[in-house]
């Protein structure tokens, strides 16, 4: 979504001339219900960390109903051609071919700072993933630590959790919901507040691979 300074200025003037009154209870209840529905359906984008509503996802049943029969025929023909091609190639290269090993995610990632000290770990436990902090410095004020993961590079990083650390948080664990598999890269950042994307100006304290 794009917006310009004209729109922001007009919105500020509209705000200045609007007396905010209490929301009627019945409407508030409806909006909170919608909020719960949206919150439960929210999905992480794998590119920008933006929340995406489920109405952006086309249900498969609907997609199938709209597919003409001749399309299936074309797909079947294409699949047959590909099968024959792959079969011929495998026959020619059978003596050299080796099956690629499946990608196995490590059970633990270490996030290390510039001095190669491990400041946090993200570990898999009981099917879920959790983070354990090592030697993070306590943060004052609104500052927060935030964890990011990506299946590729920094461009594809999404936020998976943030936390405050007002006192010593060494050895503490925190739950993480990781929407990406497999994880290739991790980052730990510090900022005043929560960021929705791993921008260049964010201070990266530690990285992991």
């Amino acid at each position, binding site marked *: 979504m794009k917006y310009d300074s004209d729109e922001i200025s007009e919105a500020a003037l509209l705000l200045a001339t609007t007396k905010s009154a209490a929301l009627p209870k019945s*409407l508030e209840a409806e909006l909170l219900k919608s909020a719960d529905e949206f919150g439960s359906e929210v999905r992480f984008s794998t590119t920008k960390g933006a929340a995406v509503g489920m109405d952006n996802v086309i249900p498969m049943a609907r997609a199938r109903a709209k597919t003409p029969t001749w399309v299936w025929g074309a797909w079947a023909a294409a699949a047959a051609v590909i099968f024959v091609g792959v079969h011929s190639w495998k026959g020619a290269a059978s003596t050299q071919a080796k099956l690629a090993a499946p990608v196995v995610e490590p059970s633990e990632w270490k996030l290390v700072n510039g001095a190669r000290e491990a400041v946090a770990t993200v570990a898999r436990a009981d099917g879920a993933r959790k983070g354990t902090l090592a030697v993070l410095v306590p943060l004052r004020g609104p500052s927060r630590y935030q964890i990011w993961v990506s299946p590729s590079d920094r461009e594809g990083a999404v936020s998976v959790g943030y936390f405050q650390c007002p006192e010593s948080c060494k050895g503490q664990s925190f739950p993480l919901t990781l929407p990406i598999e497999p994880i290739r890269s991790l980052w730990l950042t510090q900022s005043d507040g929560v960021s929705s994307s791993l921008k260049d100006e964010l201070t990266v304290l530690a990285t992991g691979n």
Partner: protein
Amino acid sequence: MNPTAAANAFFPGTLAVAVSPGRPYVNAKDDVVSLPAVTKNELEPLLPRVACGDASAVRECVVRYGGLVHSLARRFMKNESDIEDACQDIFLALWKNASAYDATVAGEATFVAMISRRRMIDRLRSRREWVEEERAPVAASDPDALERHIDARIAYKSLEGCSEEQRNVVLLSASGYSHSEISESMSIPLGTVKSHYKRAIERVQNALLNQRGSS
């Protein structure tokens, strides 16, 4: 209500902030500005958390901005059923576009007002018939809004240096009127409306930019 009459009613030659007893008063003629000192909104933004998929922040948005969104919708519509639909529409747009919020550009409440205004104008124009009574009237400034929202205060205060006609044009535009509608209702040429708008909106933009730069 005739929008020009509405605008004149709120700006009868001076820029006067509707104030409660004991609150300082602003008068453009005397060029006296004695609004309370600008204070930062202490509330932590919710939209970055919404963008990160924090379900509790989605709910908090309703609690924090429900009254504002409802009040904004009431300025554009009269029918309560339409207002409720519009509020649902606005919040959905807000949650989906949470990642577009940039705290360095505007306050969060300003962003909420921008989304609300955009959705309301879209809804009304999609009907192809904008009922006169449903148009957003130009309203006097609200002291609570000026105190709570720094952008609102800065923007409104920046209009002090504008002529009355310039102020009316930009406030009508902020309330959802197109330039041609403003031209018709104020009985001034469209080109004049555009030049008035440009001068006034530039003042507001500069004031907001200066405020952002200094904070």
